[in-house]
């Protein structure tokens, strides 16, 4: 059944993307002054679109959870709490003369959103410890290299070891981090960027 299905590429969207791609490419590489204002305008549109997407996202979330409450689905109480919080924050920001700088909005951000984000980031230490436990082993494939690299970087970073080690070792480790490791990292980032670009092109051509 699925073999008979086809996806039709949106030619209008493809034309727009092609025009924007060419325009920004000319602006980046040819540096023609007359093209610059159009390129800046497109960048501004992109920022505007991101802001609009955020607003639309808030409406989307509210709509989904209002429907859940009305239908009485499982977990509707959580949805109700979400809607109440949504309305409180929105009303506070809208009706306060200081807008998002109003004390209540700032208090909500400082006591709820910021601790949540900090908690997620603080888990990084546990991830690192768990990853070190699993991967920094000589018996594993490549584990010796990882272990050697980590020990070298640690040795240079620790004040006691730094005082006892010679300057040449510190310079060597810094060179390792700045040159080969950074090159590999940038290579991985560029490589994944190119691969994702290819995926995006396949998406636009509807996987054909």
């Amino acid at each position, binding site marked *: 059944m699925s073999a008979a299905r086809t*996806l039709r590429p949106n030619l209008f969207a493809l034309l727009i993307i092609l025009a924007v791609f060419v325009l920004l490419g000319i602006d980046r590489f040819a540096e023609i002054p007359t093209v610059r204002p159009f390129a800046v305008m497109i960048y501004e549109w992109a920022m505007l679109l991101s802001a609009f997407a955020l607003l639309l996202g808030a409406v989307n979330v509210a709509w989904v959870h209002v429907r859940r409450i009305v239908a009485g689905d499982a977990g509707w109480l959580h949805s109700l709490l979400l809607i109440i919080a949504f309305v409180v924050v929105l009303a506070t920001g809208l009706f306060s003369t200081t807008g998002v700088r109003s004390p209540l909005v700032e208090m909500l951000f400082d006591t709820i959103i910021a601790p949540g984000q900090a908690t997620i980031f603080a888990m990084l230490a546990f991830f690192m410890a768990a990853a070190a436990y699993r991967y920094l082993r000589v018996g594993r494939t490549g584990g010796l290299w990882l272990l050697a690299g980590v020990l070298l970087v640690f040795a240079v970073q620790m004040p006691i070891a730094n005082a006892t080690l010679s300057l040449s070792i510190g310079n060597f480790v810094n060179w390792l981090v700045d040159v080969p490791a950074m090159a590999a990292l940038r290579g991985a980032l560029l490589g*994944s960027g190119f691969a994702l670009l290819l995926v995006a092109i*396949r998406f636009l051509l509807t996987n054909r």
Partner: protein
Amino acid sequence: MYWNRSAADIAAAWQAEIESKLEIGATALLLAGAPESMLGSAATLLALQQSTLLRNDVATPLLVAGGNSAVWLALLMSPQPTGAPHAPMPTLIFGGADEATYLAMTGLSTSLTASRATYLGFQNTTPLEMGRTLTPRLEPGIATSWEMLPLVEVGEHPIPAQPFAAAGTPAPADPTGEWIGWGMMLFALCLVLSALLI
């Protein structure tokens, strides 16, 4: 970010989730992550296309997608297949711009998290929304950041191989998979060599 984050892998993971939830009569929850850049969503967009082409079920899963860009809206504009009856499109829910909001929204978006946590290999004591941070490679649909290290052994295949075969439809061959990987390896090697020699 991870080796299994290709469009086919994401679609396969989604299909496995849809089929497992269909069996227990629950709503499937598909996770698209909250990538920081627009380019990070490309694989998810392509995966939705592939999933739309291959699905034969009658489920309407929830698709949670966030991020600080407008790319999540593109998931609403996936082209509809023509020529044969097709499965309903997922209901898209915005997952928030940041990681913490996304995790909270993931937890809110389904009321049957325990069954999914069991599917992911955890006991019911592990909340669904934390599963992705503990084992990000089990959720190929999520573009994780560098600091979320894969806590699954290298070479392990947590996702069932070829889940589309169960539905009677072969998974699409990806002829670009091999040469992209080798090309990027060569590219990274050239960068390392150039840093050493130049």
